[in-house]
């Protein structure tokens, strides 16, 4: 529980730092995690970083510290627009952010399918937002996962909004877990402000997945506490009272209260964790901003070996 909380407050701090980098012109558009900490960190803690994979959307990478320091380090690189930000190296089993919404769900299903065929232990967890469930990819992939009995956990992070679009405009389904009926797989609805509840739901789903019992769709309900991204002005559309009510269930506050109740928390302890996170982030930012980059990198990794035309273009470029 303490390690979950540590990662949650860390994730919010990391996220705020990246947000501020954008405000200072040092990073590109990015999406803060505020409100999703319990979902992301709770889920991550139910997984086995040595065997399981995580495919994020774009908001989650700051909460995956458990999967290795490479994740955050590369996410910072990604945020400042460095190409190496897309390469999260082994042993971290995490994919880079996915901007094209819901396209990561087919990838996750394919990966789980391949792991199953290879007899690998482990499973795949994929995050997507409530809005992203409206994309065909989500449905096609979940349906295929059902048919394949693929060891995949699909986590819908329902934070109430897709930019300015509220969930009632996304769907008339009773809730997002209900969509599991369309695929004949278990659907679970969990309080996404409660990290322990998320942890347990994912742990259950993981047991089923690795036991060969197939996929699970989990909806974790929370509320987006910040703007959609650095480019967004939520005051145009988020009702103040709704937001204020949601802040009462801020996942970090919820967990802090619970830990306090159990005598696991002191102000000092949290401050120390935050100071560590701050130092850790500082190192990541310094490293990222110092990372070398040659313009010629533009031409690398299009193919394993460049085509003659790319060689010619690169030569012209370097003149």
């Amino acid at each position, binding site marked *: 529980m303490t390690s979950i909380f540590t990662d949650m407050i860390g994730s919010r701090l990391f996220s705020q730092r990246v947000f501020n980098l954008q405000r200072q012109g040092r990073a590109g558009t990015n999406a803060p995690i505020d409100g999703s900490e319990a979902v992301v960190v709770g889920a991550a803690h139910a997984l086995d970083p040595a065997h399981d994979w995580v495919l994020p959307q774009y908001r989650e990478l700051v909460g995956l510290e458990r999967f290795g320091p490479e994740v955050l380090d590369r996410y910072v690189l990604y945020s400042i627009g460095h190409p190496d930000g897309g390469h999260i190296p082994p042993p971290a089993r995490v994919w880079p952010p996915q901007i*094209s919404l819901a396209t990561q769900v087919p990838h996750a299903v394919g990966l789980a399918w391949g792991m199953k065929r290879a007899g690998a232990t482990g499973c795949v967890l994929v995050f997507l937002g409530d809005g992203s469930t409206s*994309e065909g990819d989500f449905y096609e992939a979940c349906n295929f996962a059902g048919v394949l009995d693929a060891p995949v956990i699909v986590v819908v992070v329902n934070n109430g909004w897709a*930019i300015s*679009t509220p969930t009632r405009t996304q769907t008339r389904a009773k809730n997002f877990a209900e969509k599991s009926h369309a695929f004949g797989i278990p659907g679970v609805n969990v309080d996404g402000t409660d990290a322990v509840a998320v942890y347990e739901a994912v742990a259950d789903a993981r047991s089923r997945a690795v036991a060969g019992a197939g996929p699970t769709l989990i909806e974790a309900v929370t509320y987006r506490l910040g703007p959609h991204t650095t480019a967004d002005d939520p005051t*145009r559309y988020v009702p103040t009272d709704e937001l204020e009510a949601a802040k009462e269930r801020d996942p970090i506050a919820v967990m802090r209260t619970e830990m306090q109740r159990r005598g696991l928390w002191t102000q000092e302890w949290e401050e120390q964790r935050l100071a560590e996170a701050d130092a850790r982030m500082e190192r990541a930012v310094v490293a990222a901003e110092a990372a070398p980059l040659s*313009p010629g990198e533009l031409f690398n990794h299009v193919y394993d070996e460049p085509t003659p*035309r790319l060689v010619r273009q690169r030569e012209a470029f370097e003149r």
Partner: protein
Amino acid sequence: MTTTTETLQTMNMLEAINHTLHAEMGRDERVMVFGEDVGINGGVFRATEGLLDRFGSERVVDTPLAEGVIAGAAVGLAAAGMVPVPEIQFLGFSYQAFHQIAGQIARLRYRTRSRFDVPITIRSPFGGGVRTPELHSESLAAQYANIPGLKIVLPSSAADAKGLLATAIRDPNPVLFLEPLRGYRMIKDDVPTDEHLVPFGQARTVAEGSDVAIITWSFQVELSRRAAKLLTDEGISVKVLDLRTLVPLDTESIVEAVETCGRVVVVQEAPETNGFASEVIATINDEAFYSLEAPVQRVSGYDTPYPVGMLEDFFVPDVDRICDAVRRVAGMVT
């Protein structure tokens, strides 16, 4: 041919688009605007600002996050007698609707022998240079240009944004109306406030010149105009031709430019291989080969995926690269 009136107002391109959507929705109550975040948020760039308030939620509709059905529903709306003006939030996400745009919208008239008109205008911003996340900046016009049945329109000025968008919305054929992200606020000019229609298939001469012709479209018109200015000081007289619409293509103006200058540069932001510049060159080959005094020069993005922020400026054609190409074709460098 361009219909204009006397009242002008300086607007940036975004304002011109917003103004035109207001005007067209006011003119024809069959016009409907829909897509992701176009309503209460007024669009992520505010292109649709104020439409919901003014025209109501029956005509200005925030949709679920699903480009396929945004495009596909437009087909049905058209058949119901509406004039659909869907927005795809960024052109890169039109890939999710490609089967509906290329496979259905482009072919509906042909396969039904005009039982149905298809007065659909798909608006979508695109183009680089502004550090957007992945898949937000791609220039995909060429991938659509090989699909018969679509018209492809790319304004490069605020006035044209108005005149071409109004023409698009009134056109009974499907139009991809592609808006240069980088120009949204940067491009500012005088826009006629009354009725203003710019016909399709008529290129615009942005700068007169006689040594070298730059043929281009969208934001590259602005870059080419700047290049032309610089080159004048070097004594090269550069004509800049803005194609405005790739389909239909104004072959006559292209031929005229080749005949006038004999030397041509084509500028595009898309990757080189099979970008629309290739078609311009092929068209010149077909129609004006004997007027060419040197091979046409292409200035393009490279054959790499559109890169992330820190590499972006190396990918996107800039004034320098355009100037170099002009000098090369003019025989001033090799």
